[in-house]
């Protein structure tokens, strides 16, 4: 007698990747004793698991490490929900297994390896996780011949109106990161984009083994064999980035996480206010703009050149995490909530209104959009149908599907999944 488990979050190669967001599963008996002979089983984490799983019979944020089910003897499936246990992510695929155990015999009827894969603080990555990410990113760059060039082309002078200085700054960059992350996962499915938590010191990040240390000419140095040694953009190999603040400290002058999230008291029209020079503005000004310029010099301090430096993506991953955490805390996932996104009339520039599709994934070119649309549609995922090839601004809000529907397939290590009870007003 065995149990067949089917999990919604399964890759094309049959491997299961989970986040904190519950996904639907079924379990059914194989070679059971027929109608009337139900078997009582318990779902549990395998012994010694690194990542941890939680289970529930309904979609909730109250999953438990074990769950008892009664499986009909005729093989009818029984539905349940599975998620990664918050703050217990995996380090590698297979370091957690879902076991289905016969309650009467204690026999393991099924064992399914999986990975609880979430975006983590780069400062905390293991050497293996770090190298896995760097390796995938190096392959994506392909010494200048890889698909990374298309990501670079999405963020140049002539395209900045699509992504900056308007309400869509946060959703556009969320889509940009998701697209890049899915490309990395097509190279190595175990990879999740790490974030640079720029309001804290990150000495592990600024090393030759990770994002490098510049020499006296601001040319970033790596250990021999590092995947970024041959990093090439626009025909030039190497990365230019000064390190103006000591690596044992954080950049000065940036808002802390708490200050960032507290700004505006849960109102998006303050928190996400488009950058209005030095006089006002929410997250786009500080800490985002300040994080970019904190290095003192290098590609990363200038908008058209910033994505030439892979550090750009770790910086923006933290910006996105801050938005995600704000959304969680203030319960701002709904695309009809005027506190969750700018919904006031009149409409703003196309690409930034809640119902607009976003360039370049929509393929739209010509005034007022840029003249080309590099990269094509947004990368698909076998784990989820969202957000689709041409996402709208609204697609980026409820990334965890706390309000139902399909999630976007990523989570942050310190932002839980929580189905909102009455919203904070």
């Amino acid at each position, binding site marked *: 007698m065995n149990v067949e488990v089917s999990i919604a979050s399964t890759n094309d190669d049959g491997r299961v990747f989970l986040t904190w967001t519950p996904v639907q599963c079924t379990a059914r008996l194989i070679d059971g004793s027929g109608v009337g002979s139900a078997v009582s089983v318990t779902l549990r984490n395998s012994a010694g698991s690194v990542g941890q799983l939680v289970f529930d019979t309904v979609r909730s944020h109250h999953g438990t490490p074990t769950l008892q089910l009664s499986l009909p003897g005729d093989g009818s499936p029984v539905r349940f929900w599975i998620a990664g246990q918050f703050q217990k992510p995996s380090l590698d695929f297979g370091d957690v297994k879902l076991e289905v155990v016969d309650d009467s015999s204690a026999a393991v009827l099924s064992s399914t390896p999986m990975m609880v894969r979430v975006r983590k603080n780069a400062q905390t990555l293991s050497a293996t996780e770090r190298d896995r990410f760097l390796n995938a990113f190096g392959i994506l760059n392909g010494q200048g011949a890889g698909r990374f060039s298309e990501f670079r082309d999405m963020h140049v002078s002539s395209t900045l109106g699509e992504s*900056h200085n308007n309400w869509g700054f946060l959703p556009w960059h969320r889509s940009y990161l998701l697209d890049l992350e899915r490309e990395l996962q097509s190279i190595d499915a175990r990879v999740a984009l790490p974030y640079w938590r720029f309001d804290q010191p990150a000495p592990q990040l600024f090393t030759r083994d990770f994002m490098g240390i510049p020499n006296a000419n601001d040319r970033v140095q790596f250990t021999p064999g590092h995947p970024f040694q041959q990093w090439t953009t626009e025909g030039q190999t190497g990365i230019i980035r000064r390190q103006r603040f000591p690596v044992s400290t954080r950049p000065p002058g940036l808002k802390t996480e708490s200050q960032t999230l507290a700004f505006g008291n849960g109102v998006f029209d303050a928190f996400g206010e488009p950058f209005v020079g*030095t006089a006002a503005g929410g997250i786009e000004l500080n800490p985002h703009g300040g994080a970019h310029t904190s290095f003192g010099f290098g590609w990363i301090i200038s908008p058209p050149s910033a994505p030439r430096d892979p550090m750009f993506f770790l910086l923006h991953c933290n910006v996105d995490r801050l938005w995600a955490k704000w959304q969680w805390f203030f319960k701002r996932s709904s695309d009809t909530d005027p506190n969750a996104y700018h919904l006031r009339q009149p409409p703003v520039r196309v690409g930034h209104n809640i119902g607009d599709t976003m360039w370049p994934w929509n393929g739209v070119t010509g005034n007022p959009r840029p003249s080309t649309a590099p990269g094509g549609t947004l990368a698909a995922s076998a784990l989820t149908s969202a957000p689709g090839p041409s996402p709208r601004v609204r697609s980026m809000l409820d990334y965890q599907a706390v309000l139902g529907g399909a999630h976007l397939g990523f989570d942050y290590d310190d932002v839980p999944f929580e189905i909102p009870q009455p919203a904070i007003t």
Partner: protein
Amino acid sequence: MTNVDDYRKAFAAELGRESTASPAVPPRAAASMNPGDADGISSAITLFRDPAQPVDARLAALEQVQMATFMGPGFDKHRANYRDALRAVAIADGDAQLRATALEYLALQKDEVARRLLLQGIDNSQQAIVPLAKAVQLLGHDDHGVAVPVARKVVGGAADLDAKEEAVRVLASDPQSRNVLSGILADQAQPSELAIKRIDGRNFVGPPNEPAGSPRDREITSFTPNLFVTKWVDPSVANRYGVMVFARCVTA
């Protein structure tokens, strides 16, 4: 197991210490607000350009303006003013650090005045605003058409190693400079990292990150306990150096 409700309460306590009744203006920007300068950028550019202000204040103002460039199109109305301020400071400011920083920022924008200043400094070190290595690097970012001849001159001259490295990087992306690069590798007296590589039964020694048999490799044509014979893969280099024979001499 982390309880989400407890996690929320703890985070709420943390936020409660920071929450404000109304959106706060970042303190650094407050001084720049005036009715005629709603976004503070013009004031910051003026401060940056003012030689009567302390250098630290001018650098801070410069950083604020550079942050503002992330407005994208929203910064367009300030772009000419910013460029002019950078040019003025790079050309004639009394503070060397400010001149160098202004020149670096201008070069990031691929500015023609920056290009002229960099070339002047390369031709005449008395007029250099940034070190030679940085000048070559910035030119390489700007325009390869300008940078390549400069890089060839630096590589062939008596420049320091840092400058030569930057020059070699400029040449590395120029298809016409392949032979120059092969020659550099052949000529250089500095140690470089090499690896033994094999393909189709042939052995090569060369840069580890390039496939076996690449133009910068040397093929090991013979190897005995006392003799090691190599030949450059690149025909032009091989013509210049011929077959290289290393012999181990027996000690007396």
